[in-house]
C-alpha cells in the first residue's frame, strides 16, 4: 500500500467495480487502494480501458448508477463536519448531499456536460441552490463571485451566455465554477484538458493550481497524458487493465519507474527534448479489453521481461520498493538491480 499521509481526506480500500456486459461479467476495476491528503494532487494515469474513469465514478457513487455496476470495497471520506463516512454504503438520496458539497467532479468534454438550453449562470445557480438550499439571489451573487475568481473576462455576459456561445476553454472554466460552487474538499478531474488545445490546457492547469492554493481542496486528476501528470501532481498512480500497477511520488515514478509498463510507456512518449527524427521505442501489441484479460500479470504479453511460469501464473501483489512507492511486478527487484 502507499504510505499513509499524516491526515487523510479519503481512504479507498480494495475498491472493485464489476459491470454485467454482453460477454459476461467485466471486472473494470480490481483491488484499488489509496489515500488522499487534504490539499494534495494525485494523478491517476492510464490508457483507455484501464479503469481510471471508473474509479472516479465509483468515488462519486455514480458507478452503480451509470452504467449499473456492482461496487465492492470501502471509500471512507472525512466530512466537513468532522465525521467519517464510507460513501459506498450511502443511499442515492444521502449521496446527493455528499456530491457537490464534499466531492465534485469535472469531465473531459464540457459541451456534453453542460445543458444547452439553459444559460451558464442558471446552471451554476442550480448547483448552489440544489446542494446548499440557499435563495436564488444569494446563489446568483455566489455565481458571479466564482466566475470572477476564475478569471473569466466579462463575467456578467458569461453568466447570461448559453454554452454554445462560449469557447472550449471558457466552458471548462464554467464546469470548474460549478464544481467549486459548494466548496468541495475533493475535486475529481476526469481528463479535464484532453479536449482542449495545448495553450488552453496550460491556462486550465494554471487555474486549477491557483484555485487549489486558495481553497486547499485535494484533486484526483485522471489523465492519460504523462506531461500533464508531471506538471500538476505530487503523487501518481499508474493503472493498467483495472489495477494499480505502480504508485509513488511523481519524481520517483518518472525517474526511477520500477514497473516495466511505466518504463516502456515513458520511453515511447514523443518528447520535445528528444532528437529530431529519432525512432520511438514502441510497446508492441495492444491494451487488452477488460473482458479478455490475460492470466497472471495483465501486461505480460506485451512485456519484454516476461518469464513463462512466473508472469503468466498469478496476478502479482503490490510490493513496496521504497517509501511510498509500490509496484505490481514479480521481477521488479531483479530488473532494476535491487534484488536482495
Amino acid at each position: 500500500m502507499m504510505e499513509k499521509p499524516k491526515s487523510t481526506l479519503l481512504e479507498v480500500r480494495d475498491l472493485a467495480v464489476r459491470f454485467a456486459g454482453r460477454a459476461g461479467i467485466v471486472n473494470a476495476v480490481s483491488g484499488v487502494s489509496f489515500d488522499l491528503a487534504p490539499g494534495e494532487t494525485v494523478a491517476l494515469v492510464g490508457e483507455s480501458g484501464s479503469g481510471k474513469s471508473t474509479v472516479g465514478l465509483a468515488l462519486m457513487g455514480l458507478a452503480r448508477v451509470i452504467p449499473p455496476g456492482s461496487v465492492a470495497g470501502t471509500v471512507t471520506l472525512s466530512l466537513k463536519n468532522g465525521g467519517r463516512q464510507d460513501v459506498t454504503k450511502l443511499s442515492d438520496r444521502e449521496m446527493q448531499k455528499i456530491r457537490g458539497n464534499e466531492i465534485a467532479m469535472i469531465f473531459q468534454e464540457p459541451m456534453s456536460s453542460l445543458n444547452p438550453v439553459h444559460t451558464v449562470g442558471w446552471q451554476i445557480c442550480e448547483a448552489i441552490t440544489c446542494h446548499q438550499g440557499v435563495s436564488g439571489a444569494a446563489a446568483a451573487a455566489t455565481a458571479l463571485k466564482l466566475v470572477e475568481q476564475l478569471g473569466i473576462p466579462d463575467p456578467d455576459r458569461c453568466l447570461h451566455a448559453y454554452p454554445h456561445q462560449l469557447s472550449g476553454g471558457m466552458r471548462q472554466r464554467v464546469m470548474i465554477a460549478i464544481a467549486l460552487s459548494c466548496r468541495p474538499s475533493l475535486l475529481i478531474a476526469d481528463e479535464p484538458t484532453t479536449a482542449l488545445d495545448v495553450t488552453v490546457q496550460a491556462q486550465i492547469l494554471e487555474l486549477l493550481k491557483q484555485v487549489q492554493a486558495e481553497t486547499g481542496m485535494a484533486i484526483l486528476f485522471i489523465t492519460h497524458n504523462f506531461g500533464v501528470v508531471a506538471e500538476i501532481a505530487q503523487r501518481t498512480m499508474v493503472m493498467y487493465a483495472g489495477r494499480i500497477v505502480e504508485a509513488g511520488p511523481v519524481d520517483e515514478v518518472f525517474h526511477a519507474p520500477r514497473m516495466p509498463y511505466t518504463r516502456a510507456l515513458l520511453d515511447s512518449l514523443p518528447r520535445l527534448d528528444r532528437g529530431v527524427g529519432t525512432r520511438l521505442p514502441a510497446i508492441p501489441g495492444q491494451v487488452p479489453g477488460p473482458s479478455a484479460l490475460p492470466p497472471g500479470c495483465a501486461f505480460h504479453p506485451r512485456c519484454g521481461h516476461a518469464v513463462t511460469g512466473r508472469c503468466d501464473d498469478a496476478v502479482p501483489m503490490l510490493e513496496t520498493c521504497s517509501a511510498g512507492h509500490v509496484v505490481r511486478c514479480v521481477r521488479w527487484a531483479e530488473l532494476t538491480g535491487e534484488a536482495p
Partner: protein
Amino acid sequence: MTASAVLEVRNLRKWYEIRRGVIPRVTGHVKAVDDVSFEIRKNEVLGLAGESGSGKTTIGRSVLRLIEPTSGSVNFNGAEITRFDPAALRRFRRSAQIIFQDPYSSLDPRMTIEDIVAEPLRVQRIATSRETRRRRVEDLLGRVSITKDFLSRRPGELSGGQRQRVGIARALAVDPEFVVADEPVASLDVSIQAQVINLLQDLKEQLNLSLLFISHDIAVMRHVADRIAVVYLGKIMEIGPARAICEAPRHPYTEALLSAVPNPDPRERRQRIVLQGDIPSPANPPTGCVFRTRCRYAIAACAQSQPQLQAAGPGHYKACLRDDVP
C-alpha cells in the same frame, strides 16, 4: 519552383462566405486559409502545426482539392491541380492520397477490411483481376502488420490502432507519391501512438513518400517532420527546419506553443508562457498581425500592417515585425 519540389502551394486562400438577412447577402468572410505558400520536396515530411481553428485541416484538404480553394495555385509535379477537370483529378488521386484523423468514422463499418483496402484499386482500375487485387491487398496489409485473418473482418472488430493501420494501407493502395496525414495519431492510445509514428517513418523511407503531416502536437511532429510550418488563424507564422523550429523558434507564437506542451519530466518544470484568451474568430481577425492580441511582445506597429514571411535563418522564415524577439 525548386527542381525537387513535389508540391508547390502559392497564395492559397479558402474563404467561406457569411450570408445574413432574409434575402441572404454576403456580409463577410471566414478566412479559414489566407495567403498560404509552401512547398514539399521529394521524400520530405512537412509538418503543419497549429491549434484547432488554425486552418491546418483546410490546407490539407485544399491541396488535394477535397475542398475547392478560393484562389491561389497548387502545383503538383509541374501540373496546376486547381485547373484539373474531373478526369484529370481522378488521375491525380493515384499520386496523392490522405490518411484521416478518426479511424472510427473514416472506415465504412459495413465493408470488410479487404473491400476497404481494395476500393481505391477498383476506383482507379488497378489490379483488375480478383486474384491480383487480393494479393495486392494482402501485401499492403502486411506492410502495416495486419495479418491475413483480418481480410474478412469488419472495422468494428478492430482496435483503434489496427483501424488506423487499415486507413494507412488504403491510402497506400494506389502507390501514391504524396500523402496528407491529417492528425493520424491524435485519437490513439499513448502506447499505440509510437507504433503508428514509427510505421509512417518506415513507409516514408521504403516507398519514397512525401508527406504533409498535420498535427496539433508539436512533440509528435518533432519525431516525424523534416520541416515544420506553424499556422495561426489561417496564416503561416513560421516555417523552417524541424530542429530550428523546436529548439530556436523565432516567432512569439511558436515560442508560446512549444512552452505550452507539458513536459513529462517533473524536474524540468519550465517557466511557461501562458497565452491569455482564445484564438480570435477567423470571421473577424485582428488587424495587422493576427497573433498580436495574444502576443506578449506586441507593439503599436503590429496593428498597422500584416507582417510578411522574412528570412530568420537558413531555410527558416518568420512572419513577425520584431527582430529582437523571442
